[in-house]
């Protein structure tokens, strides 16, 4: 073994020169002050976080401190941080960054985050950790030894790409790393080629069950940990339980996944209420007509329209209007005659009875605008929120909601990166079929800093396509109470893909709504049985 020795050769020469010239010599107080400063900044020989004593301005949660320590002491700075949404992955990453900075182990850092989160990362790192960052804009200077935040779209474009690949980073941090899982993509290959000493990959999506994704992400951090791709795939796709345990053990060397139920955040509960709404007679007639309309040759298109109509007349109108099928003008005429949407009227009633701040999520922009108008008619103030808003506008909307408006009406893309702990009522006006996205919606308010129990209302039109899916997600597989990770585990065990893929496949391959219903029920049954089996196993193990 060889220990490298690094020494300072210039000091004595300089000292002798200064003595000779009798210049710039310190008095005792200055000499003593330098000694004192040096001693204060020493890194002690311990596994504690040095930075922690000095960040009295933030109250860290126990799991956040644990995570930072583990990444630094046990994982040597290469880790996947995969906490559930809302547990503070950014804070964990900031803490790790700060600790390495304090220890002078890093200088040159590249932080790659979604474009919409660039500013938020910068301000969070500064406000909580006093870490000054540079946001890469038009002509970023990648050669500087500093902390740069960029979006991947900017970084991977020439000439940036080539310059970045010439740099040697002390630390590379990637937020939303699950987007990098596919090794065929340019993004993946770019990130893999970046030279980095330490590396943090952040993701809220549980990836431990999608084996290829997992293999690819781990290979960014520690190539070889999971062996080589072929052997890995052969060994683990068999899916036997013992192998699974084995894999989990290996994964734990590079991944930390804190679950809400294991943290002190668990104290604030989620209360879920399903709100069933009946269409009025004319609406119901129209729904059936739409369902039976022979004009849509593709089943998926029809389902799309049915879902739109479950949301609002406006949502359906916008897409129908673009269609040139024969029956469409007639349908549009009928649509125009319909009264206010039953769901929207229910929403007004609910918001009035809650009499507190609510966030309403919808999948459709047309619905969003309609709802704001309708709320306004009833004297309820609201703000709109969309993923496409610029950061400044987002912050402004959030502030308006906090200080003035009772309701925020948000579309899907609002999911990531906005924190609304001051609100504890969430209304799913219509539901996405992807459980992960539902989880991200809820994560906006059910997170660190929430002081109330969180109430979630799921709207659905009785006996509609929406109803069937909600029934599947909610009643049959207890989605809202269960942790998303568990569901993923079950799906993987059953060799199924994601829930929304399964649902879409069922819809695609079915001839009628009846058939869809039956197949959804079958899917639910299978999942449900597996859950029971699992729960029984757990009971046996613990008794």
């Amino acid at each position, binding site marked *: *073994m060889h*220990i*490298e020795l*690094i020494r*300072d050769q210039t*000091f004595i020469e*300089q*000292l*002798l020169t200064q003595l000779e010239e*009798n210049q710039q*010599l*310190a*008095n*005792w*107080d*200055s*000499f*003593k*002050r*330098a*000694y*004192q*400063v*040096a*001693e*204060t900044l*020493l*890194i*002690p*020989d311990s*596994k504690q976080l040095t*930075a922690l004593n*000095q*960040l*009295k*301005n933030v109250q860290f949660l126990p799991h956040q401190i644990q995570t930072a320590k583990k990444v630094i002491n046990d994982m*040597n700075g290469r880790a996947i941080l995969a906490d559930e949404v809302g547990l503070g992955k950014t804070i964990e990453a900031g803490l790790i960054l*700060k600790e390495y*900075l*304090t220890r002078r*182990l890093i200088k040159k850092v590249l932080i790659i985050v979604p474009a919409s989160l660039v500013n938020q990362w910068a301000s969070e790192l500064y406000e909580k*950790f*006093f870490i*000054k960052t540079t946001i890469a804009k038009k002509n970023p200077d990648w050669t500087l030894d500093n902390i740069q935040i960029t979006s991947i779209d900017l970084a991977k474009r020439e000439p940036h790409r080539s310059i970045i690949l010439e740099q*040697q980073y002390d630390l590379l941090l990637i937020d939303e790393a699950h987007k990098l899982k596919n*090794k065929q993509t340019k993004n993946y290959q770019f990130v893999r*080629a970046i*030279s*980095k*000493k*330490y590396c943090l990959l952040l993701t809220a999506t549980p990836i431990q069950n999608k084996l290829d994704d997992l293999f690819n992400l781990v*290979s960014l951090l*520690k*190539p*070889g*940990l999971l*062996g*080589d*791709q072929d*052997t890995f795939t052969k060994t683990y796709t068999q899916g036997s339980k013992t192998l699974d345990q084995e894999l989990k053990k290996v994964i734990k060397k590079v991944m930390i996944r804190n679950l809400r139920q294991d943290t002190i955040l668990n104290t604030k509960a989620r209360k879920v209420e399903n709100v069933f709404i009946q269409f009025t007679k004319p609406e119901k007639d129209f729904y059936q007509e739409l369902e039976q309309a022979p004009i849509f040759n593709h089943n998926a298109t029809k389902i799309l329209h049915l879902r739109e109509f479950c949301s609002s007349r406006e949502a359906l109108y916008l897409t129908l209007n673009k269609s040139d099928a024969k029956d469409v003008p007639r349908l549009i005429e009928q649509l125009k005659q319909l009264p206010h949407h039953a769901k929207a009227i229910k929403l007004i009633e609910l918001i009035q009875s809650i009499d507190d701040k609510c966030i309403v999520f919808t999948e459709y922009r047309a619905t969003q605008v309609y709802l704001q108008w309708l709320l306004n008619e009833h004297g309820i103030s609201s703000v709109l929120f969309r993923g496409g808003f610029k950061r400044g506008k987002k912050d402004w909307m959030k502030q308006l909601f906090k200080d003035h408006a009772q309701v925020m009406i948000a579309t899907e893309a609002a999911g990531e990166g906005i924190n609304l702990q001051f609100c504890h009522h969430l209304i799913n006006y219509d539901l996405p079929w992807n459980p992960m996205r539902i989880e991200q919606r809820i994560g906006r308010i059910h997170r660190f800093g929430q002081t109330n129990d969180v109430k979630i209302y799921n709207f659905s039109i009785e006996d509609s396509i929406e109803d069937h899916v909600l029934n599947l997600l909610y009643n049959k597989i207890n989605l809202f109470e269960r942790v998303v990770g568990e569901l993923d585990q079950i799906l993987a065990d059953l060799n199924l893909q994601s829930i929304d893929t399964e649902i879409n496949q069922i819809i695609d391959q079915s001839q009628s709504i009846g058939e869809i219903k039956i197949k959804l029920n079958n899917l639910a049954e299978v999942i449900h049985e597996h859950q029971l089996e699992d729960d029984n196993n757990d009971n046996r193990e613990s008794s």
Partner: protein
Amino acid sequence: MTIENLHKFLIDYFEANQCNVEADQDTLTIQLTEEMDERLMNRPFYWHYVRKLNQEGQPLQLKLTTNHSKATKEIDYIYFTTDRFKKIADDSLVKGRFTKLYQQTKTTKQTPLYPWLIVTIKITYLGKNQSDHLHSYGIHLINGTIIDQAFFRLQKKEWSMTVPDLCYPMTPLIKPINGFKRIDSYLIDQLKAKEHQWAKESFQSLTEEIELLDYFKAHNPSMDDALYQQEKSNLESIYQPKIKIELINGGLFYLKQD
């Protein structure tokens, strides 16, 4: 000797640098001098133009607090990890780097003062874990005695930058450069004699990591040589055990014989 009271440290620091300081128990208002403005406030262009136009510059007023709840837009929070403190620390290290001091002594007869070379050395053990250690070595430049923890001896005495009345400094028999070399080899001998368990562990990890990488390279054609080498040298930068020897400050000290 770590800084126990940052507030007091700051008052001393700014006063020592000729700044006017007003303080309550945790907040300071400091009228900077031109020199301190340039060192701490990071506005080189301002000073550049002031000089170019041959005008008088206006040094800024700085407000600092060690109490986070009192921080505002005007009052900066300062703590050991903030950039502001880092600047002050760097400045303190620069200004206290070299010295020549004489022991203060009241005497009625001719008194010799003996020359010592004293250096403060920071040793960093760096592998997968890290730790810093501060040493203060001194060598008697007449008889060659080497002592550790010299700083604590110095601390008990009073010092002045000029030779006190009736005292006369002795001329070193050992040249300071040779004194320094002796301290250096003393230090290296001590390091060589140590076990360095930390380094063994780190080296072990390095070996394991490289084995994994080799296996991966052998089975994954997508990993080319360049990528392999890059990854390998990054692993080495994490795990390769290193000892870093850094000089903090030092100088000649003339002491009375005890």
